[in-house]
């Protein structure tokens, strides 16, 4: 079974040289730490930055320089600032190659719910609805089951939707899965996790074809 770091490391392997990537809050933010050295990747922060760098050294925080999670950050050489209209413009026009974000639920048709739990205080969707509606490639980092052990990979989302038919790939503590027209297609098992465990933890349609390899994470 993977921990958060493991999920982030596995997702980092999906990033290709030359990609522009948008990382959501939470586990997706961690992905930045595991992008292979020497790979040319530019991180987009939807509040208006291309070329996001690591957190600043203590004492070097700049209140004018934050990411979409409102954290203090730095820039890398070649960065550019822009306004929110252009930022979501480039998201809508599919210039961002890969969007990585968290989810509460994903359905086997690619629907995603990650912004609202009825009865609980709603904080808002932020940029998530824009990102999922437009991104050409969306990978979701999420827990396969909730604390009660119930599957979050469902035939149909129960929570209010963030977007429809949009998720392409899911990485959980248990598995890597593609979203296909036929449902979740199991690609890899987490170390020490059996196909049976994944089947038990997946309520949506699950396709298991042939031998399912165990993930390789450095």
């Amino acid at each position, binding site marked *: 079974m993977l921990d958060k770091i493991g999920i982030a490391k596995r997702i980092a392997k999906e990033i290709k040289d030359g990609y522009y990537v948008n990382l959501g809050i939470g586990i997706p933010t961690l992905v930045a730490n595991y992008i292979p050295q020497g790979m040319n990747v530019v991180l987009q*922060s*939807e*509040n*208006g*930055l291309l070329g996001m760098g*690591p*957190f*600043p*050294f*203590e*004492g*070097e*925080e*700049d*209140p*004018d*320089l*934050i*990411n979409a*999670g*409102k*954290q*203090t*950050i730095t820039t890398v050489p070649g960065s550019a*600032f*822009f*306004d*929110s*209209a252009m*930022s*979501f*413009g480039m*998201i*809508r026009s599919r210039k961002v190659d890969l969007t990585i974000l968290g989810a509460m639920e994903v359905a086997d048709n690619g*629907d995603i719910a990650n912004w609202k739990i009825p009865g609980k*205080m*709603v*904080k*808002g*969707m*932020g*940029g*998530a*609805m*824009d990102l999922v*509606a*437009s991104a050409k490639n969306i990978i979701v980092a999420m827990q396969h089951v909730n604390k009660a052990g119930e599957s979050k990979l469902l035939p149909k989302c129960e929570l*209010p*939707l*963030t*977007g*429809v*038919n949009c998720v392409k790939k899911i990485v959980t503590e248990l598995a890597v899965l593609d979203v296909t027209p036929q449902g979740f297609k199991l690609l890899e098992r987490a170390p020490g996790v059996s196909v049976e465990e994944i089947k038990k933890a997946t309520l949506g349609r699950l396709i298991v074809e042939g031998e399912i390899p165990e993930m390789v994470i450095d």
Partner: protein
Amino acid sequence: MNKTVKNADEAIKDIFDNATLMLGGFGLCGIPENCITALVKKGVKGLTCISNNAGVDDFGIGLMLKTRQVKKMISSYVGENAEFERQLLSGELEVELIPQGTLATRCLAAGYGMPAVFTPAGVGTEVAIGKESRKFLVEGVEKEFLMEMAFDADFAIVKAWKGDPHGNLIFRETARNFNPMMAMAGKITIAEVEELVPAGTLEPDQIHTPGIYVHRIFQGANYEKRIEQRTVRKK
């Protein structure tokens, strides 16, 4: 042109009860601190505020929530604010949550004289309820879009880094965010700047918001620029 006013009090003096305001900033970054303080002091009430966030309990728009000056918030994300939550749950405060890109683009539409825009954000979700939708071909595939209307705000209040008496504005780093679009979108646009410089000082190629969009400008004072999530690494 000299659009300079003395201070925030003078800049906001004609903002009236039940007005619709746009307020620039993302989180606490790039917010019009001086004007918010002046609005609290003036005590104007029943405001509809279009702003990506609602501040925190004791800073930003949170200050106006505490004094119950806000009737309605139109935002994309309103977490990190206990007073906000209390007023919302008690029904004192109305909230319309819209996607962040939709918020930005509805401002842009107003500033660019486009009555409506199409965006796919929110299709198939509760955001789409009651909205006209329409299919267009995108890269050869039919895709559904929502028609979203340009905002119509009485005042836009923005914060820039530098400005001149013509109202030309330059923003700094990610403090730019919603400020340029809101500056374009207000019927009356008020800009507070960290540094007001003489006309001709700003490089004309580097101006983010041309002065034609700005009606009043002043140099703000005592910027706190509070950091919401201080994250650092060790040397």
